[in-house]
C-alpha cells in the first residue's frame, strides 16, 4: 500500500495509460448517490462507443447505518474497447466516499491488487476520535494490499458549491472520472438534464457545477489519465438495464396489462412501466398479493387480452396454484421471474439462478409449460414478444427467468427494429362455427384454437378440473389421460420447432461448459481465456430450459466432459459428507443428466454476486478431464 496526499502542484502532463478495458467502482453510503454517478458514467461511456457492463452494489436496507461495511452502495462499471459482456474480475479504479464501504469491497476481493483508490480525505482527521480510529483500523486491514490511495477533499470541494455535500459528492466524483477517462462533458450534461428534467432547473445547474468542479480538481491534481479507446458503433445502439428492457419488450409485444405485487428485484420493471404504460394503452395493476396478481393477469388473458405478471422467487412460489390452473385451462399467460437468492426471503437484492427447477416443476400434477431465459439485456427485450407469441400460439404458460444481474445491470445493444408483427392482435370476436369445441385438440399438434368470451356460439366453462374437448368435467381414466397427453403433446411439437444450440468454440474437445441466463458473458470470457492458454474448451448457452433445446446429447457426446456453470447451490464433491450418490447438483445439471443420460458435472457458486470470469477460468482448469490435451 502506498499512501500519498494528492500532489499539490498542478501537473502539466499526466501520464496516459492506454488499456483495452478498465473496471471502475464507486461506493458510498446509501443516499449519497454513488449509484446515480455510476449509471451516468456507464451511459456516457456507452454513448461514446465503449463496451459497457454495469453492476449495482446494493445494500439490503434503504438507510442502513452509515459508515459501515454493510452500507456499501454503488456501482461497478466495466468499460472496454470491445463489447463487454460481464462485470469482470476486479476493479482497477475506485472512488470511495469513506473507508468503511471500501472495506466491504476489499473483503469481497472485489479490488485489483494494484487498484487506484480515490478516497474522501476528511475521515482521517475527523473530530470524532471513533471515526479516526475506524479509519486507522481500516488502513491497517488494507495494509496487505498494494492499492494506491489518493486522498481527495471531496467534501471540502463540494461545500464551495452546495451546503450538503452528501447530496452532491456523486457529481463531483463523476467529474473526476470524466476527466480521468476523458468522457464527453457535453454528453454528461445531457444525461444530467434528463435526470433532473422533472425537478427544478436549479438542481441541474448545481449538479453541473459540481461535475465541473470534480473535473477541474482531477485536472489540477492527478498525475494520470486512462484511455480506453472507443469505437463508435456503425449501428444505432441503445443502453438500458434488463428490467427496462423487459418493460419495453412487454410493450413491444403488444401486451397491455402487467399485474404485479412489489418484490425485489422485479419491481423496478413495473416502476418503469407504470411511468409510460398508459401512453401505450396499457395498465400496471398493483394487486393485493402475488396470487391476485397472477389471477388478474389470467382473467385478462382468458378474456382475450394476453397479460403478464412479474415477480421474483417468493412470488413465483405463491403463484404456483394459478400456474397449474392456467396450464389446465390452456390460458395463454406470461410470467416473468427476476430471480434473486433463495430459499425463502434469501438475498432479496442479489443474483442467483435458483428458481429453474421450481419454474419448470414447481406445480403439483403434470403442468407442462415453456420456460425460457434471456442471457443479455437485449434478450430481455426480445424475449417478451417471443414469450407472448408462444403463449398465444400454444395456449400455454411461458415463464421467463431473468435475474438480479440482468435486472440492474446496464449494457448497450443494437437498437431493436420493432414492427407491427411483434404486437398482439386484438381478440377476434367472430362467431364460433357450430360444432367447434373449446379444446378441439389437433392430435397432430396437441393445440386447439382459443375461444374468447364475446364470441357468439363459443360459450363454455373453463375449469381447473380434468375435462374433455367440450370442457366438460370428466373423471374417467380416458378423459384425464387424453387431457394430459394433449397438453404435453403441444410442448413436444413446440420443442421440434427449436433449433439445436450453437457451440461457442470448437464443436469437439475436452470440456464443454454449459450455462443459462445472465452468466453468458462471464462463461464465454473464461472459455476464451482458457482457449488462449491452449485448453480445449467450448461452451454452450441455453435459452429454452423447458422444453430443452434439441440435439444436446449428440453435442455432449463430442466432448470428453460436460460441466454446467450456474449461480445456484450444489454440493462440493470434495465435501467429506458428499458422495457421488448423495451429491446434490446444480439445477441445470440435474436437468441435463436426466434428459441426456450423460454424466454431466457442475461447478456452481452462490456468492450473491455475479460470477467472475477469473473464477470460472479457475474452475475450468480444475475440471479438465484426466489426460486432457494442453
Amino acid at each position, binding site marked *: 500500500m502506498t499512501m500519498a496526499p494528492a500532489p499539490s502542484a498542478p501537473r502539466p502532463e499526466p501520464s496516459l495509460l492506454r488499456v483495452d478495458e478498465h473496471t471502475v467502482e464507486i461506493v458510498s453510503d446509501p443516499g449519497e448517490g454513488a449509484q446515480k454517478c455510476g449509471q451516468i458514467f456507464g451511459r456516457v461511456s456507452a454513448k461514446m462507443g465503449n463496451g459497457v457492463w454495469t453492476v449495482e452494489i446494493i445494500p439490503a436496507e434503504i438507510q442502513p447505518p452509515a459508515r459501515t461495511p454493510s452500507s456499501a452502495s454503488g456501482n461497478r462499471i466495466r468499460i472496454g474497447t470491445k463489447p463487454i459482456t460481464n462485470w469482470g474480475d476486479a476493479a482497477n479504479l475506485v472512488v470511495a466516499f469513506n473507508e468503511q464501504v471500501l472495506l466491504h469491497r476489499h473483503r469481497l476481493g472485489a479490488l485489483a491488487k494494484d487498484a487506484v483508490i480515490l478516497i474522501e480525505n476528511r475521515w482521517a482527521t475527523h473530530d470524532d476520535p471513533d471515526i479516526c480510529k475506524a479509519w486507522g483500523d481500516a488502513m491497517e486491514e488494507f495494509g496487505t494490499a498494494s492499492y494506491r490511495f489518493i486522498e481527495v477533499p471531496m467534501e471540502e470541494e463540494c461545500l464551495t458549491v452546495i451546503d450538503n455535500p452528501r447530496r452532491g459528492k456523486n457529481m463531483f466524483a463523476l467529474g473526476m472520472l470524466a476527466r480521468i477517462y476523458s468522457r464527453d462533458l457535453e454528453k454528461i450534461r445531457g444525461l444530467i438534464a434528463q435526470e433532473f428534467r422533472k425537478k427544478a432547473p436549479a438542481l441541474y445547474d448545481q449538479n453541473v457545477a459540481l461535475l465541473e468542479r470534480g473535473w477541474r480538481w482531477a485536472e489540477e491534481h492527478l498525475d494520470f489519465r486512462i484511455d480506453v479507446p472507443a469505437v463508435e458503433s456503425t449501428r444505432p445502439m441503445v443502453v438500458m438495464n434488463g428490467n427496462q428492457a423487459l418493460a419495453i419488450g412487454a410493450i413491444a409485444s403488444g401486451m397491455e396489462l402487467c399485474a404485479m405485487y412489489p418484490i425485489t428485484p422485479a419491481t423496478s420493471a413495473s416502476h418503469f412501466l407504470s411511468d*409510460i*404504460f398508459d401512453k401505450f394503452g396499457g395498465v400496471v395493476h398493483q394487486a393485493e398479493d402475488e396470487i391476485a396478481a397472477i389471477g388478474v393477469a389470467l*382473467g385478462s388473458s382468458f378474456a382475450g387480452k394476453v397479460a403478464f405478471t412479474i415477480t421474483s422467487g417468493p412470488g413465483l412460489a405463491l403463484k404456483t396454484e394459478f400456474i397449474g390452473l392456467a396450464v389446465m385451462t390452456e390460458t395463454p399467460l406470461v410470467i416473468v421471474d427476476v430471480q434473486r437468492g433463495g430459499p425463502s426471503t434469501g438475498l432479496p437484492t442479489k443474483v442467483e439462478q435458483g428458481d429453474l427447477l421450481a419454474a419448470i416443476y414447481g406445480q403439483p400434477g403434470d403442468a407442462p409449460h415453456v420456460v425460457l431465459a434471456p442471457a443479455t439485456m437485449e434478450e430481455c427485450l426480445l424475449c417478451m414478444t417471443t414469450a407472448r407469441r408462444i403463449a398465444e400460439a400454444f395456449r400455454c404458460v411461458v415463464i421467463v427467468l431473468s435475474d438480479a444481474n440482468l435486472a440492474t445491470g446496464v449494457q448497450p445493444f443494437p437498437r431493436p427494429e420493432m414492427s*407491427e408483427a411483434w404486437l398482439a392482435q386484438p381478440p377476434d370476436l*367472430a362467431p364460433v362455427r357450430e360444432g367447434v369445441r373449446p379444446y378441439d385438440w389437433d392430435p397432430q399438434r396437441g393445440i386447439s384454437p382459443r375461444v374468447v368470451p364475446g364470441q357468439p356460439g363459443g360459450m363454455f366453462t373453463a375449469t381447473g378440473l380434468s375435462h374433455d374437448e367440450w370442457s366438460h368435467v370428466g373423471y374417467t381414466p380416458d378423459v384425464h389421460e387424453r387431457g394430459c397427453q394433449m397438453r404435453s403433446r403441444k410442448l413436444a411439437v413446440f420443442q421440434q420447432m427449436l433449433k439445436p444450440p450453437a457451440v461457442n468454440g470448437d464443436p469437439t474437445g475436452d470440456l464443454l461448459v454449459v450455462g443459462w441466463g445472465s452468466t453468458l458473458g462471464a462463461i464465454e470470457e473464461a472459455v476464451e481465456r482458457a482457449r488462449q492458454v491452449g485448453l480445449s474448451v467450448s461452451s454452450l448457452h441455453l435459452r429454452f430450459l423447458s422444453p430443452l433445446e434439441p440435439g444436446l446429447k449428440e453435442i455432449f457426446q463430442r466432448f470428453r466432459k460436460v460441466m454446467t456453470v450456474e449461480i445456484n447451490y450444489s454440493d462440493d464433491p470434495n465435501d467429506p459428507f458428499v458422495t457421488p450418490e448423495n451429491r446434490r447438483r446444480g439445477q441445470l445439471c440435474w436437468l441435463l443428466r436426466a434428459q441426456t443420460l450423460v454424466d454431466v458435472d457442475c461447478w456452481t457458486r452462490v456468492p450473491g454476486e455475479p460470477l467472475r470470469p477469473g473464477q470460472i477460468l479457475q474452475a475450468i482448469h480444475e475440471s479438465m478431464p484426466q489426460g486432457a490435451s494442453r
Partner: protein
Amino acid sequence: MSDACCSLLSAAPESEEREWTLSDYESALARWCPGCGDHAILTAVQRLLEAEQLPPEQTMFVSGIGCASRFPHYLSTYGFHGIHGRALPIATGMKLRRPDLNVFVVMGDGDCCSIGAAHWIHAIRYNPDMVALMLDNGVYGLTKNQTSPTSPKGMPSNTQPRGAFLPPMNPISTTLGVTNASFVAQTGDWLPAHLYATLQAAFRHHGFSFVRILQRCPQYTTAIYDVAVRDPNLVELMVHPDGVVVPELDRIIKNKVPHDPADLDEARRLAEPDGKIRLGVFYRNETHPVYEETRAVPARSASEKLALLGAELDRYAV
C-alpha cells in the same frame, strides 16, 4: 351493471336482434344435492339473465371451488371455474381489460370469507362493476362437513366435532367496513321473490355488488336456516324504494324495518347480530369510482404504438 366503457363492443360482430329465452341460459343438469339452496339460486339467476336479456356470449360467470362454484357449469354463458378463493382476481382481470363483459362471481363462504378473504376485501375497495354472490351455507360441503368462518358457534363438524370454537364472522359488517363499499345486500334461498329482486338490484347497480345469499345445505347445516324457513317471524325485511321491495312477501313476513340504503351508519347497526335474520339492501352508493373506469386508458393503434416506442427508445439511444 351499466354498459359504460364498452371499448370492445365495437369490435364485436353486430349480433342480430333476437330475444333470449330461459333455455338459452340453461346447461347441464345441476348436480347439487336434492334440496340444496343452490338450485333456487341458479333458477333466480337464469330468470335474471332472461329478464335483463343479457347475450350469453357477453356474460361471464367466474367461480372458485366448492359446491357453489359449480355454478358456471350449469349455465350456458361463458364461465370460468377457477381455484379455491381466487374468483375475484380473475373476474377483476376480465373486467379490467374487457369492460364490455357482464361479469358475475359466485363464491361459497369458505371461498370468500376464508381462503379468498384478502381478495374479497380488496375487490370491495377496487370496486369493479360486477355482481359478487356469496352462497353462504355456513359449512364446507364439498369437502364433507368442515367448520367454515360463518359456521355458528357450537356447530359440530368433522374438524370441530365438539362444536365450532369461535363465533362466526359477519360478512355483511365486514363488507360495510371496507373503503368504497358500494352495494351490500342479503337475501335467502328460500324466498325466491326476494332473492330475485335482490339479484336484480345488484345487477342494476353500477359498482361492486356484494350479495350474501343465506343458503340451506340439506346435508350438513339444515339447522342454521330451517327455523327461519318455518318461522317467518325470525326474518326482518329492510324496506325502502331504493332497496328491494317485494309485495309478494307482505302476507308472509310481517317484520319490516324502513331503511334507506344511503345511510351507512344505520346499515352497520342493522348488520349487527340481534337475533333477527335481516334481508334486503343494507347499503348502496354509486358515487364510488369503478376500477376499470379509473384505470381506463385510450387504446392505441399498432402504428401509434410503434411511433411511441421509437420515441421511448430515443431516450436510451447511445
